[in-house]
């Protein structure tokens, strides 16, 4: 397997899109199973190719793990060239591995989940299109191609959220996601253009990652900060951070596999990926890093508080996703890129697992999503229960499960790294406690106690089919053991994820050294980080976090298993605070008042005042004028093709004469 075959990875899903998109309806008429064979097969093949390339990459020594494959020239305009090319380095392959892997599992899951839907082929077309866009995003070797994938995942997210578009609420949710993403993308594009024009002023008309990063010192520091902040604003939209996170909870309107694939495992991590990819730029701007860290920590905390009170099973998971993404950004912001990405990896496993399990639950409950109407499902759906419990252990950070390692790494870095602070760490710990609390609240409300659903619904409760449970089992195994890829040194591990990603993130530090006049050597960075201080503080923090998390679980147990009247009492005693949380801090309403209503009023003014009277008037009178002219010119329109040909000829004649004799 040559690295040159990397183009196969995105091409398989694209082929799937073409087949299912163009012929899907016919295929469904003939043989429904062919649709998912094509779709899953395409993603499976992509995964296979990724796996082969990944193995090949692992076989190379660390310094040589970089390969840039240029497929063909895309835009070529004067000095500005953009080509469609793919970058193979540890970061992109790392992302691509779990994007295709988790994507494949969710495709398989969708076979069972969407089995009875009438738009079966459309669903798989969108899923494949999404996979294509996401792979393009991850593998692209330049900003513009990455932006193509970036927009592509946004589009697919819109299409999939409002997949059941006949329901108004779904359509509105899709629109909200799309518009919010557009706001972010707008800033992203501005950042891109600012960067390009400045680099171009120095003769660097290229958007290739390698070119840009190796010339990053050409950018003045304040400009780097501006560009980074603009980029980060784009990332907040895609990765659901404050202030643009509002779309993600609403996005739960889509089918559950979509929530698992797009809004937990892949698309929302695009922002994390992008910030890590641009680690060179971000490292150059400490202020931007600070912003990332603070926004991440605040989001982690803020979303967790909202999740405490939600009753919709998917909403709880959605807010927990926002919260976990906040963790990742916290990690990135304090300079621990590898820790952030490690959390991306583990999170993609356990969050996909949780979503898929919730999908099974919803499926079994005949579409019921309110946890107040569930309960006691443990007996009836053992597989779902056990896998979901594993996922919950992982997300809560119980030692031994994957979430523990990654979350702990981030918290430790937030505490200890030069860019971190104790305050950030403290916010993170608070969020961790709340995470444990609300996740176990979800488990207790759903699987324990008596069933609160109606008789008829109870009658239908059943375990999900094989195609749904098998991905669950695979993911639960990954949720347990995925963490052992990156066991920190403090626990006797080798922190393999960080070592593997070192070549990419060493670059950022190299750049700093270079700017300071030092010599850029990756191995120096490695040597520096290898001199680890004593592990004692790390152990202390670990034990502390674990204890407090267990306390959170215990609280949850007390409130939702033992004294089930207490939550209501608390809510009744603090009505304003409870309502504040239940209504998500009124952020949606605030946005509505501050941004949307004035904008709408202004738009109506533009429509009624400017557009109808001024512009339409101008256009209409212009049209009327040319109508009259047309009446005059109508004479020349004989309708005979050859006369037109003659006049065409005369025109060419004049042009040629101009070029030959005048120019």
């Amino acid at each position, binding site marked *: 397997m040559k690295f040159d075959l990397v183009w196969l990875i995105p091409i398989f899903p694209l082929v799937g899109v073409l087949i299912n998109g163009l012929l899907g309806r016919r295929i469904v008429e003939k043989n429904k199973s062919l649709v998912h064979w094509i779709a899953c097969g395409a993603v499976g093949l992509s995964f296979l190719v990724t796996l082969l390339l990944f193995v090949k990459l692992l076989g190379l020594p660390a310094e040589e793990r970089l390969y840039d494959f240029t497929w063909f020239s895309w835009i070529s305009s004067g000095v500005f060239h953009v080509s469609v090319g793919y970058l193979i380095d540890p970061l992109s392959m790392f992302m691509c591995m779990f994007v295709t892997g988790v994507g494949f599992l969710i495709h398989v899951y969708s076979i069972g989940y969407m089995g009875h839907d009438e738009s079966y082929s459309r669903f798989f077309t969108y899923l494949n299109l999404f996979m294509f866009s996401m792979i393009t995003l991850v593998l692209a070797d330049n900003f513009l191609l990455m932006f193509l994938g970036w927009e592509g995942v946004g589009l697919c997210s819109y299409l999939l959220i409002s997949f059941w578009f006949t329901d108004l609420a779904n359509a509105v949710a899709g629109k909200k996601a799309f518009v919010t993403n557009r706001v972010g993308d707008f800033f992203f594009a501005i950042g891109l253009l600012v960067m390009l024009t400045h680099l171009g002023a120095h003769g660097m008309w290229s958007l290739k990652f390698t070119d840009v990063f190796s010339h990053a010192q050409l950018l003045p520091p304040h400009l780097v900060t501006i560009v980074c902040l603009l980029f980060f604003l784009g990332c907040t939209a895609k990765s659901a951070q404050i202030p643009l996170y509002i779309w993600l909870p609403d996005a739960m309107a889509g089918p559950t596999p979509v929530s698992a694939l797009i809004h937990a495992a892949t698309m929302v991590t695009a922002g994390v990926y992008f910030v890590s990819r641009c680690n060179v730029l971000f490292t150059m701007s400490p202020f931007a890093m600070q912003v990332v860290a603070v926004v991440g920590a605040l989001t982690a905390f803020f979303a967790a508080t909202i999740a405490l009170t939600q009753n919709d099973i998917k909403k709880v998971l959605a807010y927990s996703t926002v919260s976990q993404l906040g963790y990742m950004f916290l990690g990135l912001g304090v300079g621990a890129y590898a820790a952030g990405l490690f959390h991306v990896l583990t999170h993609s496993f356990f969050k996909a697992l949780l979503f898929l399990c919730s999908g099974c639950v919803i499926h079994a409950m005949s579409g019921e999503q309110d946890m107040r109407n569930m309960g006691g499902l443990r007996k009836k759906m053992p597989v779902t229960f056990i896998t979901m419990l594993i996922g919950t252990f992982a997300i809560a950070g119980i030692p031994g499960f994957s979430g523990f390692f990654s979350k702990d790494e981030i918290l430790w870095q937030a505490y200890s790294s030069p860019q971190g602070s104790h305050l950030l760490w403290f916010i993170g710990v608070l969020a961790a406690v709340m995470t444990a609390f609300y996740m176990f609240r979800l488990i207790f409300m759903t699987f324990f106690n008596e069933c609160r659903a109606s008789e008829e619904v109870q009658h239908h409760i059943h375990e999900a089919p094989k195609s749904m449970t098998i991905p669950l089992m695979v993911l639960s195994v990954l949720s347990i053991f995925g963490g052992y890829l990156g066991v920190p040194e403090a626990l006797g591990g080798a922190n393999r994820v960080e070592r593997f990603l070192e070549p990419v993130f060493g670059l950022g530090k190299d750049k700093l050294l270079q700017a300071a006049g030092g010599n850029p050597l990756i191995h120096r960075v490695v040597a520096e980080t290898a001199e680890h201080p004593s592990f004692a503080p790390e152990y202390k923090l670990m034990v502390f976090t674990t204890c407090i998390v267990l306390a959170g679980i215990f609280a949850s147990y007390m409130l939702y298993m033992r004294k089930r009247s207490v939550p209501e009492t608390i809510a009744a005693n603090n009505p304003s605070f409870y309502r504040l949380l239940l209504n998500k801090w009124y952020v949606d309403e605030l946005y509505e008042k501050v941004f949307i209503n004035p904008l709408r009023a202004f738009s109506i003014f533009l429509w009624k005042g400017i557009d109808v009277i001024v512009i339409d008037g101008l256009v209409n009178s212009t049209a009327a004028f040319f109508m009259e002219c047309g009446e005059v010119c*109508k004479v020349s*329109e*004989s*309708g*005979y*093709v*050859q006369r*037109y*040909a*003659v006049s065409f*000829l005369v025109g060419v004649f004049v042009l040629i004469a101009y070029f030959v004799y005048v120019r």
Partner: protein
Amino acid sequence: MNDYQSVYLALSAILFGVGVLGVISRKDAIVVFLCIEIMLGAVNLAFVAFARANQSAEGLFMVMCIMAVAGAEAAIGLAIFVLLYRKTGTINIDKFNLLKW
């Protein structure tokens, strides 16, 4: 290597002219069509001549593209003629002035 470059170009120009003459004066749609092919051929000749003079493959590639376009044009054009003939029984283009408005 620029031998006879101008001869080729002159030949190309004259052929092109002949094609144009046919296009603007013949009434039989298929012959008009053939004349368009003559024009394309003349252009191809000029392209190849320039390509050789510049020692570059771009001109040759252009010629291949033109051939593909000619093929596409033949497919569509003849389909249209067959359709016209079926509907009206003639392909004399003076009989068609639907573009008149």
